[in-house]
């Protein structure tokens, strides 16, 4: 069975149609990339999948393991194995990063009928995951994303992904605001999480990220529809020709 099936997905934001019939099937263990110009609906797609309020599905469906997730709250979707790496990670003053991560882990354990994670065990597990991403103890102690640089915020997103071990992750413009060194660290972190059970949808404006996170399939999103699909070579084509051939002016 496919892990994720998006069927004829239509969605509006503030009554304005943004997604106009998206079809996408993602098999376990594969990485798909969605590329598209600004305003094509990339971020809307990520929020609709994650279940953000205000993003209304007007037609179509999203299936996880063949079951619709549209009636599920954002937290229920996360428990079911969905993960969104935010383009703009949210700052939460007063909540320590570790407290936040522990609450997320415990939410999963509670749903699975397991006892809360032991504090020492949790820290040990966390230390293993932070090494690869260069996340310091100091970053763990600080309030979630508060005072983090752009690169630190994105590393923190991938750390959360590593800790929560989702089955399907959407990476929304994870490359935005990163210099090449930061991009490599983040990409290494993502690649380390590739596995036969886990699928990913990498959303990006630029082909650059896909040099480091090499996708199995590439789709082009324009004006709320997928207008082209192909292998990783499609990304390179786009880099050369831009989005002009897909019904939209190239973004500046």
């Amino acid at each position: 069975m496919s892990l994720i099936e998006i069927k004829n997905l239509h969605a509006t934001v503030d009554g304005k149609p943004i997604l106009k019939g998206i079809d996408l099937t993602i098999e376990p263990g594969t990485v798909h990339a969605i590329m598209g110009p600004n305003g094509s609906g990339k971020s809307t797609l990520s929020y609709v999948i994650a279940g953000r309020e205000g993003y209304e599905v007007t037609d179509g469906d999203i299936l996880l393991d063949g079951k619709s997730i549209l009636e599920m709250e954002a937290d229920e979707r996360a428990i079911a194995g969905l993960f969104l790496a935010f383009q703009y990670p949210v700052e939460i003053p007063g909540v320590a990063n570790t407290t936040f991560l522990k609450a997320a882990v415990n939410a999963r354990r509670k749903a699975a009928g397991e006892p809360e994670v032991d504090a020492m065990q949790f820290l040990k597990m966390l230390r293993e995951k932070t090494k690869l991403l260069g996340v310091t103890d100091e970053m763990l102690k600080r309030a979630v994303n508060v005072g983090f640089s752009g690169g630190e915020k994105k590393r923190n997103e991938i750390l959360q992904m590593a800790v929560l071990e989702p089955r399907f992750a959407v990476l929304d413009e994870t490359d935005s605001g990163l210099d090449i060194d930061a991009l490599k660290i983040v990409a290494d972190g993502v690649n380390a999480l590739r596995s036969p059970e886990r699928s990913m949808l990498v959303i990006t404006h630029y082909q650059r990220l896909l040099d480091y996170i090499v996708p199995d399939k590439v789709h082009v999103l324009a004006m709320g529809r997928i207008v082209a699909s192909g292998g990783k070579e499609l990304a390179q084509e786009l880099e050369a020709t831009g989005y002009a051939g897909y019904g939209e002016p190239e973004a500046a």
Partner: protein
Amino acid sequence: MALAARSYPGPLANRHAELSLKLAGAGVGWLDTLRADSAARYRATGLPTPKVEAWRYTNLKDLVGIDFASAPVVGDMALDSLPRASLLAVNGHVLAFVNGRLRPDLSTLDTLPAGVTLLPLSEAIHSDEQALSAHLGRLVEAEENPFVDLNTALMEDGVVLRLADGAVLDKPLHIISVGAVADTPLAFFPRLLAVLGRDARATIFESHAGIGEGAYLSAMASEIVLGAGAHLEHYKLQNESQSAFHVANTRVTVEAGAVYDNFVLQIGSRLSRNEVHTALIGEGASCRLNGAYLGAGKQHLDSTTFIDHAVPVCASREVYKGVLDDQAHGVFQGKILVRRDAQQTDGHQLNRALLLSRQAEVNAKPELEIYADDVKCSHGATVGELADDQLFYLQARGIDRETARGLLIEAYVQEALDEIGNAEARLPFQRLVGGWLKSRKG
């Protein structure tokens, strides 16, 4: 009549003559005079209506409608032990009062260090009369505050803490006041006098709580004198029962280089007003007036502060945070006066309130009155709701909405708790904030 519109007839105003005969220390000349003068003023002023600017947002109409008996006269509920869960959990010297009267059986006064005098007021009137007569009523005599006058007129018991120059109170003093009232509404008037000599140090916790359904008024008055270089940590919990009125007035003078570190958490009572006035009267004096108020139901919680920068090079810092649910009403009034001589004043004030329901309401009135020209003063006030993007971020990680809200509210209040100078003292407050949040969910 214009006067009538500005005042309510004060509860107990006409009963002082009869009640005063039974008060502790009745017959002690200077004390009789102090009480009688205060009673006369209180009778004349009554209690303020919202026509009085300082009481614009806090209406006492429900309070003045109650026929309070004064606690020394009538019986109360039996209380064999303290309601620990409602109090701050701190270790130290304990002076516990039930309905305003000392309960030696619930108090623990260990051996005190040299230079420290710690007595119940009812005892100090006799054994520490000289010091008492020198200080009692002195910090409040210049102002007309009907609740202070009412307290002075009818005060029965309380705490007297005096530290000689250089003395250090070894353990925190925990003042516990419990209202235990059945049917007859009661009023009681705890009094605190704290006089710290040069370079003396002390920590005072206060827990105010109640049991039972009966209405009561706890109207405490505190006078605090800090000598040069003294350091006082003063942390208070107002967790009165849901039918109680709590009106507390604290007056502090801070001499050169001394520090007054104050934090007040208000979570209880039907209507409360906690008023702290601090005068920085010696160069290099500083104060920190911080607090948090968490209201639900129809609670009315008022935090009013006044900081008087009277001399140069003093610092004040003030952070208040409120969380209001249901139809709760919060009030924050913070006035900072910087007198002409008070150059190089460093003043910072912040009040933020979080509204969890459409019917909840907050009135914030920051007031800066600055007559010096070389000062650094800032103030800010914000009112908001929980941020949707933060809620979504937490939910997107699998944290359910209720838990996410709890985390965000706790974090919000934590910013105020972090202002408590003594990090260890934050813990008992954290526990109560956590308890409040849990009770909200249920």
